Structure formats: C-alpha cells, structure tokens
C-alpha cells in the first residue's frame, strides 16, 4: 500500500448557488494520520469529504493533496460510503467486487487472484469470496467495501460515517480493524462521524464543525497512544476529559 499523503484545506468554501454550505475551512491532515470530522447533522461534514474525493469542486480556496490541487476523483483517494449496499455491485460476488478495483487499475489477470485473496483475508472475509453482497450481513458488506477500497492501493482513505448503520458490537470490531490496517499501512484517513466517542477513539486529530454555514469550530489533537483498546482507552482520564470538553460542540451547546 502506498504511504499516506497530506491533505491541506486552504481557505475552502462551498456553496450551492447562493446558499453557503462551508466557509473558511483551514486545516491540514498530516500524512499517515487519522483525522475525524464531527459536528451536528447538516453542518457539511459529508460535503467536506466529497470535496476531498473530487466529486464536487470548492467554490472558494483549494484542497491540496501532497501540494497538488484536487479537481477530480482519482484512484489514490478511496471512498468508503456509509450505504455499503448501494456501493457494492450486487451482480458480482465478493471476490469479483474486489476484482473491480484491480481491473480498473489494469492489473494483469494472473496477478489478481492472489491480491484479491490477500484483501479478503485482511478484512476477515476469506471464506465468503463466492457469496453475493445480498448474502452477507451489513458488517460483512462494509468489510467488503473496505477491501475493495484497499485493493485500489490508495494513499488516502475517506470514510463517510462508515460504521453508522451497524450494530454497536460490529462497529467496535471494525473500528479496531481499521486501526490495525491503518497502523500497518500508514494510510492517511479522513473519517466523518457524528459519534464523538468514535472520533476520540480513532483519531490523531479531531475537527469539530459548526453549522450554518459549516465552519471550523475546534481543531484538537488527541494525545492518546496507539494501539488503542476499547476498554482501556475509553477509561483513560484524557479520553474522558476530552469527551466532556468536546461534548457541547456536537450537541448544540448544552452540557449533557
């Protein structure tokens, strides 16, 4: 897997016609780190991610990936969508879904098999290669989408509330697997979530957005060491302190 690249937001603004969605976004995601974007719903988290993906273009300012201005989607920036069932090809098996990324990169047929098997192994689906997405559980489908994204050998992984539709247990398992994969590959990850605990658990850095229009509320570093642990990390005084401090930002001002 390619080493991560940095993402720089340089005074980025975005508007639908006259309606401003995002304005004055300035920050940098360092290469090989995980940045979590949180904020109330409707604050433009997903729009920010779609800008980095290249699906839409900034109305103001620019987004730079390792210094280069981003204008369109490309294979080195993978996107994990929240609605995994819509992002997988239902007529292809798990194996063939991963294969799509390799076909797109013109990987010779002879090399595909081994690489697909490695990817399915990595996300814990080696025994489900021949199943169709509809035959897999939600958690497995999301693993499959992650496998396809990793198979495209990205340097950046954009994740739009990827675990939001999953049950709590599956979510915890996938969080740990994401951390394991990221530690191994040094991918740069931008992770959008509305779940503060998830953001604190995963991120090196947290970017809290405010709404109307979406703008930077707080940008904080998370000094918790990796590898993180579902129990120990979440009982760490730093975790609890930061959780209390950031809570008001994501829950409309009032303390819980």
């Amino acid at each position: 897997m390619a080493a991560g690249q940095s993402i720089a937001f340089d005074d980025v603004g975005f508007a639908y016609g006259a309606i401003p969605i995002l304005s004055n976004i300035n920050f940098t995601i360092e290469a090989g780190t995980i940045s979590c974007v949180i904020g109330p719903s409707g604050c433009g988290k997903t729009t920010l991610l779609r800008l980095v993906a290249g699906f839409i273009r900034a109305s103001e300012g620019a987004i730079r990936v390792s210094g280069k201005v981003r204008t369109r989607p490309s294979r080195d920036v993978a996107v994990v969508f929240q609605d995994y069932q819509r992002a997988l090809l239902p007529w292809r098996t798990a194996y063939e879904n991963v294969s799509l990324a390799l076909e797109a990169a013109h990987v010779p047929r002879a090399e595909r098999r081994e690489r697909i098997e490695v990817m399915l192994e990595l996300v814990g689906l080696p025994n489900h290669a021949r199943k169709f997405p509809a035959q897999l559980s939600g958690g497995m489908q999301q693993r499959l989408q992650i496998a396809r994204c990793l198979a495209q050998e990205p340097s950046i992984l954009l994740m739009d509330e990827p675990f939001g539709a999953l049950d709590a247990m599956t979510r915890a398992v996938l969080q740990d697997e994401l951390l394991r994969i990221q530690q191994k590959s040094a991918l740069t990850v931008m992770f959008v979530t509305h779940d503060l605990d998830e953001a604190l658990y995963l991120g090196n850095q947290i970017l809290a957005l405010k709404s109307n229009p979406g703008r930077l509320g707080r940008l904080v570093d998370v000094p918790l060491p990796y590898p993180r642990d579902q129990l120990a990390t979440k009982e760490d005084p730093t975790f609890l302190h930061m959780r209390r401090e950031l809570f008001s930002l994501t829950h409309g001002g009032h303390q819980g």
Partner: protein
Amino acid sequence: MSKGFNYRPFVVLAVLLAGWHWALGLHHVESDTLAPPGKVVAELGRLILDGTVLVAARQTLLATLLGLAAGSFLGTLIGLISGLAQPVALAIRGPVEVLRPLPAIALVPLMTITFGLGLAMEVYVIIFAVIWPCIILTQSAVRAVDPRLLEVADVLELSWLARVWKIVLPSVRPRLIVMLRFVGAIALLIAVTVELVSNPWGLGHQMMIAEEGFHPDRMLAYLVVITLMGWCLNWAFVALERHAFTPRLNAN
C-alpha cells in the same frame, strides 16, 4: 416452475373447443367463415405434412427475429449513449418525438417502393416499430442507475467503455430483458400485419390467401400457428428473464 403440471388452462381450452364443435354441428352450419375444430386440426396436419406451414412459419419467424435483433440493438445503443450523455439526449429528442408516434404500418408503401416486397421491407418496418420503445426504455433505465455506483466508477477512474460494460449494462440488464419481452410481441404483431397487408410471404400472407379462397379451416389453422408462435416467443423471453434474475435473487 412448480412441480405439479397445471392442467386447468387446458381444461378450459378443451371445453371451449367442444363448445365450438357442438355449436357448429347443432346448427348444421355450412359456413365460409367458420370451421369445426376437427376440420381445422386435419387441415393443420395436412399443411404440416406438405411443408407449406413450415416454410411460411420460418419466413415470419426470420423477419420477426431479424427486425427484433436489429431494432433492439440499435435502440439500446442509442438509448445507452443518450442516457449517459445529456447533450446527445437533447439532440435526439426532437427527431424521436416527431417519428415515434408514426404508426409503423403506415410505412409499408414507402418501404415497398424503396426495398420492394420481401424480407428486407418487412424487417425495416419491424425495426422502425421496435426502435423507439427501445430508445426510451433504455434511456430511462440508464438514468435510474444508482448514482452511488457511478461515483464508485469515478473514484476507480474507469474508462467510458469499462463504465458502460461493468457498471451501467449489468445495472440495467433486468429492465432490458423486460423491454425485450415487450418489443418482441410488437415485432411479431408488425410482421404478421405487414404480411396481411401486402407482403407475399409468411404466415400472414398464407392466412390471407386462405381467407380469399373461402377456406376457413385453413385460415384458422394458420391462426393457430401464429398463436403458437406468439406463445413460444413469449415463453422464450420469460425463460430468459427467469434465467437472468435467478443468480441475484438467491439472497438470504
């Protein structure tokens, strides 16, 4: 397919045939327009044995399938391109809307002057009848492809051709198969009509000759053959549909 043989439609059919036979026999009708089912079956047997019905059926089937294949291929291609590229859709919208309401059968004189009587003329009329629904149905199927899948194609930087082949076509396949079944019926309808109206060829023409020669039994025998051909075509498309839908529907 269910395991038990469904005999009910055949019972209804048998009752109707018996009623038909009985009604004609009861009134001792010597009709130039109707014949009892027994005579129709006998005539059909004779036509099969001397081969005329097979020749005619082959001609009608050939024209139907050629016209269907060419018309649906062209229509699907145009529908695909215009469904994916808005400028193309706008460019063809005018011509499509002007030509589409034109009844294909009204083209028979023009096509006869251009291509003469025979296979070519009939195929062109069928193409004309089939191409418009194919364009419109394919276009709307392409537009209904999940935008998420197209974003996946964007992220993977798929070429235009790979995008069509790997994402769009498999997405629209179920709708295209339903479309094929729909326009298949139109193709046979147009083929028989062209033969009835003017083309000296095929089942429709044979049926016309039988009618003009006051042979109701022969006329009805050809009607039976046309009906059977319609059933067979429909059955083939239903089988295709079933085959196409199974691999995706064996989900939990």
